[in-house]
């Protein structure tokens, strides 16, 4: 027997072979996604033809459910697994393409609001999850991973943090399983809660982007509600993703200071390494769209390409979710994650209610009135972003206008953008605590009032100069009085 161990040389897999390995899984993703699309079109039509009462189920849900059924019954065969794992690639490509449907101004306006919300959400989530981890006596690094996963962006954040704080594989598996299971639950519960509370597309999109952990699940939860909600959810989620580097860096420095992780040398390089590059792609394509690099038809084509990419993603979300595997990981991290997620969902709903109004569709529905009351309590108690007095009347009028405009124009991306642009401006005014009356903010009205008064004063001065009589009291004429000729 030879005393020299011969290590078999592992030959690098050729790029062509690697590509071929991916193909079966991608075909499976496409087949499930397309089956979902066909089911959406045909099941509704069939039910209508036979006078059945059947809810209109979107392709997103069909694709996820089909994937879930396969994954949790026959399991995904080995040959498809490499290709199924590409769903994240399709998600990121889809988000970049979706950038063409945003004007840069929209992103800057909404980005401003969402950045504040994201900062509050991340701080609150990390603080609460850390408290919860200590309460349940979880291992400190496991607590850190769960906190990052629920505060920033799910699995990617956990993987990035794991490397930076040198956490155990077991801890990261626990956290990933908990975050994935909770993401799957959020996927089905968020749209139901959104409809129950009669949230507007904007309010729901913000909420899903802030509270759902994984980008794929956040996109799907948004798409299950509406196209406009999906767009917003993606934008807000991307803002959260952009924060990943800062949060991971903070954790790395914290654990290094305790001597339990390597210290970070070049912080700028670290941030760049952790920064999700698809966010840059999203912004860049939005800049191109803003400066008319694409015409209207081309933007429509890019939007459809983005939908196809998301179709593969949604199928992958279902195929990847295996409840048996998740059950094996134990109950305690899941319990901590679940309690944390519920609190974060309620907290972020309050933030959204405070930032953009109650978001109800209005009308005479008693549930809408009930949800308005819930939101009123929120705004009164949180009071972070809005002045409660006279707030809901203005928010409701803006939201009603937006909903109508968004629905009428949902097929037309340019008009849709304009509707959303108008809505963003209203949202910004509301977020700044200004009342919106008949489409004008109080401040704008005050300015107009001011200039009307100035104009009238000049007119009176003219009267004086040209020898007309004008008493001192009449020099200042209120705007509601007729202007002297």
């Amino acid at each position, binding site marked *: 027997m030879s*005393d*020299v*161990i011969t*290590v078999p040389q592992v030959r690098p897999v050729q790029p062509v072979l690697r590509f071929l390995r991916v193909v079966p899984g991608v075909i499976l993703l496409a087949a499930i996604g397309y089956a979902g699309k066909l089911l959406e079109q045909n099941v509704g039509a069939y039910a209508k033809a036979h006078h059945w009462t059947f809810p209109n189920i979107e392709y997103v849900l069909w694709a996820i459910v089909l994937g879930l059924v396969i994954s949790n019954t026959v399991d995904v065969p080995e040959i498809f697994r490499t290709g199924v794992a590409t769903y*994240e*690639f*399709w*998600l*990121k*490509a*889809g988000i*970049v*393409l979706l950038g*063409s449907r945003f004007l840069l101004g929209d992103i800057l306006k909404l980005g401003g609001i969402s950045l504040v919300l994201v900062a509050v959400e991340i701080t609150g989530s990390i603080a609460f999850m850390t408290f919860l981890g200590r309460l349940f006596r979880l291992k400190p690094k496991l607590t850190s991973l769960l906190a990052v996963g629920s505060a920033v962006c799910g699995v990617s954040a956990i993987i990035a943090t794991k490397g930076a704080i040198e956490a155990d594989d077991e801890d990261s598996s626990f956290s990933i399983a908990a975050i994935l299971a909770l993401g799957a639950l959020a996927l089905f519960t968020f749209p139901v809660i959104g409809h129950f509370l009669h949230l507007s597309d904007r309010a729901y999109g913000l909420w899903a982007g802030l509270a759902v952990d994984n980008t794929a699940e956040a996109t799907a939860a948004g798409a299950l509600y509406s196209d406009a909600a999906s767009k917003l959810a993606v934008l807000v989620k991307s803002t959260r993703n952009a924060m990943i580097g800062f949060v991971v860096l903070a954790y790395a420095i914290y654990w290094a200071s305790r001597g339990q992780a390597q210290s970070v040398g070049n912080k700028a390089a670290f941030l760049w390494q952790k920064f*999700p*590059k*698809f966010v*840059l*792609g999203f912004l*860049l*394509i939005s800049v*191109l769209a803003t400066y008319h*690099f*694409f015409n209207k*038809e*081309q933007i*429509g*084509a*890019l939007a*459809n*390409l983005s*939908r*196809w990419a998301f179709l593969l993603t949604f199928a992958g979300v279902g195929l990847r979710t295996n409840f048996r595997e998740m059950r094996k990981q134990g109950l305690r991290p899941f319990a901590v994650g679940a309690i944390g997620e519920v609190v974060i969902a309620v907290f972020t709903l309050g933030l959204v209610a405070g930032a953009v109004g109650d978001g109800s569709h209005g009308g005479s529905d008693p549930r809408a009135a009930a949800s308005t009351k819930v939101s009123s309590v929120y705004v009164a108690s949180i009071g972070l972003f809005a002045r409660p007095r006279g707030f809901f009347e203005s928010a409701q009028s803006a939201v009603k206008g937006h909903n109508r405009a968004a629905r009428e124009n949902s097929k037309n991306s340019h008009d849709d953008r304009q509707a959303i642009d108008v809505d963003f401006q209203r949202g910004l005014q509301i977020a700044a605590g200004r009342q919106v009356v008949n489409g004008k903010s109080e401040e704008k009205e005050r300015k107009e009032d001011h200039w009307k008064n100035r104009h009238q004063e000049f007119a009176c001065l003219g009267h004086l100069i040209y020898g007309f009589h004008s008493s001192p009291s009449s020099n200042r004429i209120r705007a509601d009085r007729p202007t002297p000729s």
Partner: protein
Amino acid sequence: MSGEAKAVKKGNGWRLSLDAWAVLVAFLAALLVRFGVFKHVPW
């Protein structure tokens, strides 16, 4: 029994991340649409 193992330094090479690939593919698709290779993408 004595063992002998040779540490083989693995060449990392220059590899793009998944994100970077996604951005590249998305931009390639956008350029193909922009320059009329894909005139209409159905849904």
